[in-house]
């Protein structure tokens, strides 16, 4: 008995306190992450092939608009583009605005929704039913990513090693950055300089 009373940890105290109270928040996990309905996100993974084509189309369109962005000024364009980007990607992928989108390398399943924010594949804790270790009701983001990538034409991009997230780019527009980078690349090629 003495051993039982001695083994009170912080966790057990929290658990006991939670049981006593009338109000227990239902929609938060230990990560303080509001759980959403995953249906849209899962739809996006199922239609990864279609979204990949759509994305490629829009990337080209944005690149064509490069002179326009330049005329307006990328800095001035950022606010409205970010407004649209945040809502569109938020709806389709539960986007977290990390500012460095890797959806094309992750089967159109946003890796920032992983509680560990893994960008290079599933951790070893995936449950036997394919759900998350941290949030038992959520399908593992990376199990879905692997499924999505198998449907995509450029799905093997999932096999390349991703760099760690640059936290200083949070809440910025990935679309504009990618467009500006592609434009710079194109100009370098036209000038005949090596990349």
């Amino acid at each position, binding site marked *: 008995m003495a051993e039982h009373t001695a083994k009170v*940890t*912080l*966790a057990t105290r*929290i658990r006991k306190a939670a049981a006593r109270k009338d109000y227990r928040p239902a929609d938060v*996990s*230990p*990560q303080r992450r509001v759980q959403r309905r995953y249906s849209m996100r899962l739809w996006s993974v199922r239609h990864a092939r279609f979204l990949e084509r759509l994305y490629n189309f829009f990337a080209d369109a944005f690149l064509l608009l490069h002179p326009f962005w330049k005329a307006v000024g990328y800095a001035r364009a950022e606010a409205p583009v970010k407004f649209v980007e945040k809502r569109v990607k938020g709806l389709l992928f539960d986007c977290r605005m990390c500012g460095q989108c890797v959806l094309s390398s992750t089967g159109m399943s946003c890796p920032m929704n992983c*509680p*560990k*924010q*893994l*960008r*290079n*594949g*599933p*951790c*070893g*804790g*995936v*449950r*036997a039913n*394919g759900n998350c*270790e*941290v949030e038992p009701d959520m399908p*593992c983001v*990376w*199990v879905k990513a*692997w*499924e999505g990538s198998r449907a995509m034409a450029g799905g093997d991009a*999932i*096999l*390349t*090693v*991703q*760099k*760690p*997230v640059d*936290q200083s780019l949070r809440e910025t527009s990935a679309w504009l950055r990618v467009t500006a980078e592609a434009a710079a690349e194109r100009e370098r090629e036209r000038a005949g300089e090596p990349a």
Partner: protein
Amino acid sequence: MSTHRPVQPDENPAGIDLPLDPLPGHSSLGRLERVLRRGEFAVTAELNPPDSANPHEVYERAAIFDGWVDGINAVDASGANCHMSSVGICALLTRMGYATILQISCRDRNRIAIQGDVLGAAAMGVGNILCLTGDGVQAGDQPGAKPVFDLDSMSLLETVRIMRDKAKFLSGRKLSTPPAVFLGAAINPFAPPHDFRAHRLAKKVAAGAQFVQGQYCYDVPMFRDYMQKVRDLGLLEDVFVLCGVGPLASARTARWMRANVPGVHIPDHVIARLEGAADQKAEGKRLCIDIINEVKDIPGVSGVHVMAYRQEEYVAEIVHESGVLKGRTPWKREARADDVMVAERLEHILHDESSETPQQIVKEAAN
């Protein structure tokens, strides 16, 4: 000087805590890499970290592995439970000459802290670093902690590799001496998505992994399939695979582990076997030895990683009875003739009662 001390393979004659001479093609100055590259079957074990500030608890826990394992894993708050830090354990063990495998998990520290720890550990003589993502904080005793996960296991591998091979930090700032470490990672062949798992190992190898230690293996056919895929991808030229094994204390423990420890896969027939035994603990040990005997013959398996949590005293028996060392004795800490001399002298210094105060000594000297 050390006439009574038996000759040990892979030891610096100038002192057991000193690094070995560099060998061509080796990236660390440690013993584990030498054992693996020589083609010997390696054995590593996990040290249960103490909840204590007493160094002797670490030494005692390491002493039971003496002469049975080639490397000791210093775990970094495994299962998100607070314990003595892995860097602290490595600091103590390297002083005594043990070959340590420093585990770094990305859960608790960001890239600034991790790169600093890598340098500090390498300076202390840690030859092996195991790069892990880490369990989520919900699994441990402090679920209210902030999960960091600034890097993941893959980018951590790449970070340490950049530090070692290019002698610079992730930011590009130069290091005057790069950390000479043998880089490890973890694999879990038993969790979904099963098709991706071998590719994930390929990614880890591309990011810099030179050896991998596996999650508990209780499903040998599944592990065999995984190894087949790994062989087909041609990864075994660049990486040594150590299969994770461990004894189960009872059928109840097995059930509890399956339900509560993230990423552990235990098939029903294993639990049934334990339940049917008269002495479940002995049967658990027997099962572990049987699994070692099965996996050691799978082509491409270079060793085993024994995780005998709270049953560390069985590691020696398991290693002995499975015969994986084939008569070889891994490095063993033994007292040298001069150690005994130092101990005697220390005894004298510590226990001789000195009745003189410093003032009396000064007075005597003045007269």
